[in-house]
């Protein structure tokens, strides 16, 4: 806790130096500044990390020319993006075209304000933190549609429509799976959620039956929500050039990327907060390491998982994505909610473990069996032409 206390003390000192009328604004500014700078820097590093890791997955080196081991590649990319011409199509709706990337970045950044980064390290500790998070997260849909509509490009429009449909559909399982945590914790405040997992690794929500399934469902919905592979259909490169970003260039394009990156961090941070113990160390002995380090460690490992998935999977089709959302994700998250309810009713313990675990297990296997029998796809076996009966 010493690290958090130190940061808070520094902030208080700096705020007290300001004239009294400026103090509220100054305080807010000092809260935002570290978040914005650290996530901006993290975004730069994550682009490098992503390209490096994808390269290794594909048996390449990845960027390694700029700086030692390619470390300065994000700087070079940034310079390139900044110096490129900013092209706006003649018939575009200029205002909307201009506002869309800003709106996306703002909504992504706002989500970070309610994430507790350490003990008392939270920019905006409101009682309904998670509600706020999802509310501002939903604003990104508006921004994406603004981009698609304002560009006056058919690909952009198609991409934006896909994005809207996808993000709204996946918001439901996303919130339902988060709801299971909130039910058990009994609070909408994210600091309370983290406090509930303070006792070490065994108190983390992911190590409960409802938390495990909830975490997986939450991660899958997260992938869809931030338009990452295999749910990157709004910007499907091989189909729609770049989807809603088709008509963007230069710094606006970079802003889109940054917004996506920050949204990914925000979602990963929320996942870590809800299911992986937030800023708490897995073992109380290790709690001398500052909380933010733990949170960023968990966040980074989730990002690595996302990169790994991106390196493996083909993309779904829009209608199959919807099918998956409504036929699999939604029922499973409802079942998970019931499992969490059982957990609450039995107040934890062995009985709760067995009953909610059994429910989730049976539901997953049963439902996926039913689905795969009903679905039209399956592995196939092939026949060979018979030697004798060669027909012309």
């Amino acid at each position, binding site marked *: 806790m010493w690290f958090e206390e130190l940061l808070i003390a520094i902030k208080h000192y700096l705020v007290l130096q300001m004239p009294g009328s400026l103090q509220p604004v100054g305080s807010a500014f000092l809260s935002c500044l570290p978040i914005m700078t650290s996530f901006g820097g993290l975004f730069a590093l994550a682009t490098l990390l992503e390209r490096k890791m994808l390269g290794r997955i594909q048996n390449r080196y990845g960027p390694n020319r700029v700086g030692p081991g390619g470390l300065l590649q994000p700087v070079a990319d940034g310079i390139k993006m900044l110096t490129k011409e900013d092209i706006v199509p003649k*018939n575009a709706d200029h205002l909307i075209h201009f506002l869309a990337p800003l709106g996306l970045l703002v909504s992504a950044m706002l989500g970070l304000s309610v994430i507790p980064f350490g003990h008392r390290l939270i920019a905006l500790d409101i009682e309904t933190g998670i509600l706020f998070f999802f509310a501002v997260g939903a604003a990104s849909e508006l921004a994406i549609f603004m981009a698609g509509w304002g560009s006056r490009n058919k690909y952009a429009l198609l991409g934006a429509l896909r994005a809207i449909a996808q993000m709204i559909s996946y918001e439901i399982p996303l919130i339902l799976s988060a709801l299971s945590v909130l039910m058990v914790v009994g609070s909408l405040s994210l600091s309370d959620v983290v406090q509930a997992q303070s006792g070490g690794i065994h108190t983390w929500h992911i190590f409960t039956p409802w938390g495990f399934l909830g975490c997986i469902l939450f991660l899958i919905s997260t992938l869809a929500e931030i338009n990452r592979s295999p749910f990157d259909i709004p910007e499907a490169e091989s189909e729609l050039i770049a989807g809603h970003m088709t008509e963007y260039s230069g710094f606006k394009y970079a802003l889109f990327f940054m917004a996506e990156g920050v949204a990914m961090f925000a979602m990963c941070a929320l996942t870590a907060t809800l299911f992986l113990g937030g800023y708490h160390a897995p073992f109380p002995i290790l709690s001398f390491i500052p909380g933010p380090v733990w949170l960023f460690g968990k966040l980074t490992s989730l990002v690595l998982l996302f990169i790994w998935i991106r390196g493996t*999977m083909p993309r779904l089709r829009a209608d199959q994505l919807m099918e998956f959302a409504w036929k699999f994700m939604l029922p499973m998250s409802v079942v998970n909610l019931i499992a969490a309810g059982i957990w609450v009713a039995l107040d934890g313990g062995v009985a709760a473990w067995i009953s909610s675990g059994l429910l989730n297990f049976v539901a997953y296997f049963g439902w996926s069996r039913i689905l795969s029998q009903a679905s039209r796809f399956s592995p196939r076996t092939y026949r060979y032409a018979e030697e004798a009966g060669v027909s012309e």
Partner: protein
Amino acid sequence: MTPSPGRPTEAMPQFEMHATGVEGATEGTERMEVSMGPHHPSTHGVFRMDVELEGETITKLKPVFGYLHRNHEKIAESTSYLGSMPYTDRLDYFNSMTNNWAYALSVEKLAGIEVPERAEYIRVITAELTRLQNHVSLIGFLVQDMGALGTPLMYAFRERERILDLFESLSGARMMCNYMRFGGCRCDVSADWIKQAQSVVEAFPQFLDEFEALISENEVLMARSQHVGILKPELAIDAGVAGPVLRATGVNYDLRKVDGYGIYDRFQFRVPLGDHGDVYDRYMIRVLEMRESVKILQQALAEIPNGDYVNPKAKLRGFRPPPGEAYGRIEAPKGELGFYLISDGSPKPYRYRVRPPSLINLTILEDMCLGQTIADAVIILGSIDIVLGEVDR
């Protein structure tokens, strides 16, 4: 509302959406025309699809090609017979060896040149290696079209590289081999090369296993490709489709078995057939075909006899086939590749015509795409396996 300064003052032009008046168009909805290409990320070259969409469903699709037209046939009619050989490399630039073979085969038919046995073996070996590298890179492209970010493509290219290295040490060039000659091949294979080829071939099935573990059972791939872009066998036969696209519909037609060109009757191999004719079948047929090609290669590399690599009587310079006509065809990796030649006794062909499998397989694109979505059109195009160099010539 007063127009903002950045906005054009006149009424903003609407999207070029228009009701096409096609029967069945629902009241109140408009169809959108999207021109996919010629510089779209997934058209495999300069190729355009004029797509009419209702929502995301394709109601009309017009393939537009010719952006890469290079006058191949006319150039060949003004060049010597030998001079066209390097140009055939550039038809389907993935498979220069099989292009060479098809052209050499038709000239040999035209002039009645015998091919020594060793040369026949070399031709089979190079052709099957070509098939391996074509299919493996095609599958990589196909899965990339499905959005797999190039991972399978990179693995495919890693293996393809080994085969291209073999081609380079044999013919001197990786892709534009220009290796076959009338009556044989340009240079002999060394015992060392055969050993290298054997080691590449031995390692290949293991790579295929890995590759299949990566994607064949992937639910996303199956969902994307099964029951998508179905081609009926009747239509396929009527349209003259050949190669893996035809065999995926269940029609047993492989020129290696049917036509009996070269020495394919000496090797043990089977012809895999699909039952549905969809994208997944076309993908799997190619995977299985690669496994059969490996078998052919193992036999050919073990049995290759000693002897001439080129018919010593075949003339290189001043080659004048007697007047007549000939059509030589082979089972190229993409389908039936044929060269039709008419000779008037002069050193240049009077008529030179290519039957490009890519072009003829492309003609059924619209039939396969109607009623599918725009995302399917991309992978259907990918599964046909076209090379624009061959389509446009």
